[in-house]
């Protein structure tokens, strides 16, 4: 380039005016101070029963110690034919980085809607669960920073809950708590839903003790468990509170319930 301007062929050798100047803008890489994620707090919870699934989440949105909003839902109906989602049969909950959660929800919703349009039938939970995993894994190297839970009724009409990590690992489970207060709620669920550490009194000593028989819980009992779990989480976690949104999926459709939680 510099040769273009030179009248003197002798001058095209090493030059004297700017030889101290660095060849590039700076030696190393510039430090990036922009971090594309944040944590908006909150917690979600899903429990499946014999013929129903309940997915719940608190409605508080936080950033740091501030409350952004007292009503910012993180449980969504997916794949209905209209924007009101009245005829949806799937529910997705997302907790973590709310903007990624919103983007993930909209992507999955569009895909499930397209599936219905192209196949003339609603998507099964099993198929949707696999698809959601693929979506999350597709952003393996710039993940959606969310813990997702998908719920619905399976082909036999039994309650189904699928839980995910941010990069798409998933598994079907009986129940799952996610988000800020997951570590507070999950042990409670292990004990109250799957009867972990519950033994039949006097059935033996030590390892001979017989475990309490695992039976599926009725819907009203599960609803009470969800309320108790969130009331307890609100008491001990500052990012959880304000309101509890519950979506109850049965073969009759999806029923939505909202209950106030402590706002402190």
């Amino acid at each position, binding site marked *: 380039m510099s040769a273009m301007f030179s009248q003197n062929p002798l001058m095209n050798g090493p030059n004297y005016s700017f030889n101290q100047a660095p060849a590039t803008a700076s030696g190393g890489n*510039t430090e990036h101070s922009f971090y594309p994620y944040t944590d908006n707090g909150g917690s979600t919870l899903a429990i499946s029963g014999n013929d129903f699934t309940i997915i719940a989440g608190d409605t508080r949105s936080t950033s740091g110690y501030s409350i952004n909003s007292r009503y910012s839902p993180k449980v969504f109906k997916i794949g209905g034919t209209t924007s009101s989602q009245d005829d949806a049969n799937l529910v997705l909950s997302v907790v973590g980085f709310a903007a990624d959660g919103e983007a993930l929800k909209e992507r999955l919703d569009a895909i499930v809607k397209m599936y219905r349009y192209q196949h003339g039938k609603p998507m099964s939970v099993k198929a949707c669960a696999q698809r959601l995993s693929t979506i999350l894994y597709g952003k393996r190297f710039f993940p959606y920073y969310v813990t997702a839970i998908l719920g619905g009724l399976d082909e036999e009409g039994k309650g189904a809950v699928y839980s995910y990590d941010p990069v798409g690992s998933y598994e079907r489970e009986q129940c799952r708590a996610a988000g800020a207060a997951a570590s507070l709620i999950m042990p409670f669920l292990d004990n109250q839903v799957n009867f972990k550490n519950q033994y039949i009194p006097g059935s033996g000593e030590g390892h001979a003790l017989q475990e309490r028989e695992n039976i599926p819980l009725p819907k009203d009992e599960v609803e009470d468990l969800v309320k108790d779990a969130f009331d307890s989480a609100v008491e001990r976690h500052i990012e959880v509170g304000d309101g509890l949104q519950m979506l109850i999926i049965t073969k009759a459709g999806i029923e939505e319930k909202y209950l106030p939680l402590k706002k402190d």
Partner: protein
Amino acid sequence: MNHLPQAWGRPRDDVYGAYDSSYLQNGGPTQHTQRPIVTGTSVVALKFKDGVVIAADNLASYGSLARFTDVKRLRKFAETSVVGFGGDVSDMQYLDRLLNSLDIQEAYGSSGHTLNAQNLHTYLSKVLYKRRSDFNPLWNQLLVAGLDGESKPFLAAADLLGTTFSSPSLATGYGAHLAQPLLRNVAPDEEAASKLSLEQALEAVKESMKVLFYRDARSMDKYSIAVITKDGIDLKENEQLEKQSWAFADQIRGYGTQVN
């Protein structure tokens, strides 16, 4: 003499040697915004019975320097909505141009339908989320005020990460800490906000601006305030904070020249 235009204004090669043009080239990676430079501080807004009140001061700071004192940070859109900008001013001006072109594009449509505040908020949050996903963020915190599809008061926030939320009252920056508690006192929930009169809402917002001026070092006493109702937008861009009381100032102890 070199008569080629490329060489005009450059040091003479026969005297100084060939020009080292590598000095001009930025060989490093493409640079994206890493931090805001000229910034606006808080935006505060509150819903009331028939609309929304939104306010922001007219200051643009360069670090701790009060650099520009006549910057309008509330922007009208299509005579239906107002966007309040916090954060980087050059990114605000970019978004302003973007909204201008969107406004023109929409006005040419044959439907006669205009974008409402809810549509506008969705659009802006997607722009912001796309830019953060490209690691090239628009460094702003926005409040969008207006009416939704059912002509009910609408107020929502969006920021540089694409995070969105809605509430009866909202405030960005320092306002989230100082103004939001005052606004939540008058409108703790949607029901309370839907019973507020315009006068009550104006009073609460003006009081918030005053508190922000007392305690936010990057704020100013000249501000813009807008009221959005279904009758249109009433935007005032040269308001002065009234009835300040600095009586509390001599009660403050523990720093400054006096110690006790």
